[in-house]
């Protein structure tokens, strides 16, 4: 019993530190890639090729003054960043790096994922509300509205995958893709999932909740120091999660020749994240009403169509 507990704990700590390391270096990758997209070099002065930049950023954030504005609701103001980060990190419990490297291989992993990633909305909404600042509140409200609207087509676009794989466990889903990646069987589902997950993680074409020219910094306006850092980490952890999920659901997860399984997943995650950066470097932010009507009038019907077509075909072929 204690042995199980200890090995479990070690496993959690290991995976946690790998995730946090990846999150730190994703910020660097994003900044450098955005630089390249804009004919700049990006941060390259700290350490060889800028490799120590995330550490410098971390130290800087840590030594910033940690302020709590006097009119804020203190309890929720402090709790909100923690909720945002924990809800994302909890999701990684079911994300497998290979058939054996996983904290918990649950039979209901997909449900668990959807449930916990929705909890992240609470962090943002509470941050916006407890700051007691109209920009923060508007940012938080937008975040809540956006995440809820995009969660529906997001969930529906995964159901197609679940039907084909016949399981909700992520390990089983990846095993079902050993011959053929699901992107071939679910091209529409893949595109829908990609769009919805980038709205869910508040990436640039959909980053209305912190849109600078309208809302200052959205829900994080009043946050400083490590409290802001937690939001930042949560955001990048969420993007890492999104990249992992795209790879696991549609790109065959860790399946691949020659190289070890976790490395294959890492390569795929790298390319999916590069795609996210590419999209961010290309598209301007869309208007708020466009965002909403796009979700409800375009994505949702398409997701239903995809779901029905998949279901009918699966039954017909079986």
């Amino acid at each position, binding site marked *: 019993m204690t042995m199980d507990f200890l090995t479990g704990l070690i496993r959690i700590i290991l995976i946690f530190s790998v995730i946090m390391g990846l999150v730190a270096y994703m910020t660097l990758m994003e900044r450098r890639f955005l630089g*390249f*997209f*804009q*004919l*700049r*070099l990006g941060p390259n002065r700290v350490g060889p090729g800028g490799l120590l930049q995330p550490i410098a950023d971390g130290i800087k954030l840590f030594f910033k003054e940690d302020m709590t504005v006097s009119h804020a609701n203190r309890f929720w103001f402090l709790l909100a960043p923690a909720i945002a980060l924990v809800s994302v990190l909890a999701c990684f419990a079911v994300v497998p790096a290979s058939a054996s490297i996983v904290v918990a291989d649950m039979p209901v992993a997909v449900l668990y994922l959807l449930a916990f990633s929705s909890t992240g909305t609470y962090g943002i909404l509470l941050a916006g509300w407890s700051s007691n600042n109209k920009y923060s509140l508007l940012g938080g409200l937008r975040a809540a509205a956006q995440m809820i609207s995009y969660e529906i087509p997001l969930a529906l676009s995964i159901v197609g995958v679940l039907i084909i794989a016949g399981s909700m466990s992520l390990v089983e889903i990846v095993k079902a893709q050993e011959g053929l990646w699901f992107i071939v069987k679910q091209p529409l589902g893949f595109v829908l999932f990609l769009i919805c997950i980038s709205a869910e993680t508040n990436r640039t074409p959909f980053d209305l909740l912190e849109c600078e020219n309208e809302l200052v910094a959205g829900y994080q306006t009043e946050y400083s120091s490590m409290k802001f850092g937690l939001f930042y980490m949560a955001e990048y952890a969420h993007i890492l999660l999104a990249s992992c999920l795209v790879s696991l659901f549609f790109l065959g997860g860790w399946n691949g020749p020659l190289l070890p399984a976790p490395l294959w997943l890492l390569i795929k995650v790298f390319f999916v994240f590069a795609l996210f950066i*590419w999209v961010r470097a*290309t*598209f301007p932010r869309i208007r708020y009403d466009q965002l909403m009507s796009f979700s409800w009038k375009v994505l949702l019907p398409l997701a239903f169509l995809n779901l029905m077509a998949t279901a009918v075909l699966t039954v017909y072929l079986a």
Partner: protein
Amino acid sequence: MSKALLKGLALTLKTFFRRPVTVQYPDEKRPVPERFRGRPMLLAREDGTPRCVACGLCEKICPSLCITVSAETGPDGVRALARYSLDLNRCSFCGLCVEACPVEAIAMGSEYELAAFGREPLVCTTERLLAATARNGEERP
């Protein structure tokens, strides 16, 4: 609509693989234009003494009053330069002193990294202004 989106993506992808235009400033510097007006410098005769005849026209024309010229009677009885002082704290690098000089004794150099830890190092004396000429390694008539 999606075709336009893909076109945009193709364009940004092309820029991703182009060379960045960044000049990494302290490590690499852009060449200074030919008529750049940097730190002023005094030009010297072949024997190393300043060409300046201490007429004081530069002092008169200087809009920021940063030049002070003091004259003395030289060993051959001719008016000669005693001390030339140019205060870079005040200088606006307008180049009027160069325009005014009848003997082309002062010129604008190309140095532009003039930050110092105090005011004193920025007050340039004759020697420093001559030394700037040597550093620039160019004699602009």
